[in-house]
């Protein structure tokens, strides 16, 4: 089953596909410039020692962004039906 959640709520090593980036202006531009656009597959690589920022694996490379920036990114993830 597929579910849409905010990037902030993703767990470490969880995979997902970006479905929307809901922010305009500088932040939105920056997020898109760095390749975080709908259809992109990402994996959460880890989080900083204080849980923020978060590091993402994207197309074989690593990006990092703050949790409050991740809030604007909506991701589609696979969830087990058993849950």
């Amino acid at each position, binding site marked *: 089953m597929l579910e849409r959640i905010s990037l902030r709520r993703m767990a470490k090593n969880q995979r997902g596909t970006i479905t929307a980036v809901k922010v305009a202006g500088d932040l939105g531009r920056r997020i898109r410039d760095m390749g975080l656009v709908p259809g992109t597959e990402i994996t959460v690589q880890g989080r900083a020692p204080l849980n923020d*920022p978060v590091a993402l694996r994207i197309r074989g490379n690593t990006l990092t962004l703050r949790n409050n920036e991740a809030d604007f990114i909506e991701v589609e993830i696979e969830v087990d039906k058993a849950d």
Partner: protein
Amino acid sequence: MLKIILALAGNPNAGKTTLFNALTGARQHVGNYPGVTVERKEGDYHKDDFNAVVVDLPGTYSLTAYSEEEVVARDFLANEKPAVVINILDAANLERNLYLTCQLLELKVPLVVALNMMDVAKDRGMEIDIDKLSAFLGVPVLPIVARSSRGLDDLMAAVKAQAAGRLAPPDPAKVRISYGDDIDQTLLTMTGLIRDSGLLKGKYPARWIAVKIVENDEMLINEVKAADPELGARLLHEAELVAEHLMQTFDTYPEAVIADHRYGFIKGILKRGIITHRYDENRLYTSDRIDKVLTNRFAGPLLMLAVLFSIYQITFSLSALPVSWVAAVFGWLGGVLDAGLTDGPLKSMLISGVIDGVGGVLGFVPLIMLMFLCIAILEDSGYLARVAFMMDRIFRIFGLHGSSVMAFIVSGGIAGGCAVPGVMAARTLRSPKERMATLLTVPFMNCGAKLPIMALLIGAFFAEHQAMYMFGFTLFSWVVALVAAKILRLTVLRGAPTPFVMELPPYRFPTFKGLLIHTWERTWQYIKKAGTVILAISILLWAMMTYPGLSPEKKAAFVQEKEQISARYKTGSEERERLLKEVEGRRGAAALQHSIAGRIGVALEKVTWLSGFDWRTNIALLGGFAAKEVVVSTLGTAYSMGDVDPEAAASLGQRLARDAAWSPLVALSALLFMAFYAPCFVTVVCIAREAGSWKWAFFSIGYSTTFAFILSTGVYQVGRFLGF
């Protein structure tokens, strides 16, 4: 022969600087773009009869007007029209790197693509069909490995051909990116209008202007409005219509649609057999394994502290020896002049103004070189990005950026640093507001030059708790600096945080050549630019502490007194030496009080009595503007003790402890003031350089002095009230 201009464009971390160094060697010139703090790097390239000026544009991910770097890169391409733009791409990160390429194609600049790090891509099991990529982009694509200078000859041959106009421009139909029906229709209308009117013709292509307006690029919109207000309004109206439509039907922004389609265009190209992966694209590489340790929740911060501490150690202990050499050379020079010249204003100016000034400038050089070397290693290896990643959560609370930590540590986050290299370390910050807040607050840290004054006053008044007070001041300076940063970010530097989104580039070994060039060019900039101003101010301060001299009568009175002593006591007797020294001390104090600085000090008593300072302390604090340790020696002169060595000021301490004007409360008030008032002028000059304007340098002097005064007055008055 006329030299052509080549521009290097590319993402940060794509190897642009490495390529630049490989092409130009040491023939580089570093400056600033007018009005901004972005570095402008130029170098010469010669090969046979091909001569070119290579301009290293700042690394950018895009050509929007998102950051100063992007604006600079875009303006350069539009205004200076380089003969060829070399777009360097990281082969292992092709998809994102091509995003900039798309925009360069749209801007219709004469392009040659350099596909860098082919070795890394190969190791990762990637194969790239270069001919196909070239065919799809319509521009030459050349594989290179910039680190080992592989493929540069072929690259430059292609550049030469492109510059000579021997290559056909890319087929516009092929590289025209479609942005979906709605936007494409609008673009068509707008492009027609722009073409008919000749708007900004010759500067930008018509369709590019249209795309930028739809993307809501404020800088370009303003430029269009200024050029043709009526047409501007019409174009904006078109853009608004399509924006409204997209919002209603797809709940999205035009800029998002445009970005999506650009990536779609890139994916479309890459899918057609250009890249083949032999392994899983997301498998972990050595670099990621290193990261598992270096950014680990527990080991990461500890290792980071160890790295920062060793940088601090390297910068300050390794530089101690060369710094002492510089001091020795200038001390010797001073001695030579002292022996060779007759006493007089010229001699005094040469020794106390020029030699001390030049010595002061050069004394910082070993420090700055070592610090830039350490920073270059951290930057080039990719570790600095990890430091920012780990520290960001803490520094963000105060409106700063994770990268600010370097500047704070070097400035004295560990007691004994120096704000001059600290201010320069703020260069690694790419967010303008966070950077400015860092520049303005790092001088609060406990730098090495403040330590002798602390040792003096704490030793004299709080000897029982010396270690605790010293440590307390270091901690307190952190609190003050961070809170001040927060206040600045809420007031004069108000504004949303700059987006943090950044890359954690794979770890790489820095190249030796890159490190040397990096370190040298930054150090040279300091010597050349800051040096001249520092010398001038040094002479000015000397003059203020020297002129006007004592009146002839007063001078004569001191001479007479000395003669009487000489006549009364035996030559070489202890008593005679002591008395002569005592008179000389009084003469020095009288001369200092009589000088401009002295008069200012006396005049300031009207205000400074509030925090418990008399004119002597005031003069000493004025002297501290030259360099904080000067406070000790000036205090010595003001208390008629002659020259006091800042390192051995115990007798001055005893003198102060006995003085009626001093008490532990006054000492505490003075300590607080001294710790947080105006930075020394070398720091101020560096702030002006780094901030790009003197306005911020004066602001730094003003706000820190005001803050220090309020703090010390508060402590003094409350202390008095409580009966201390």
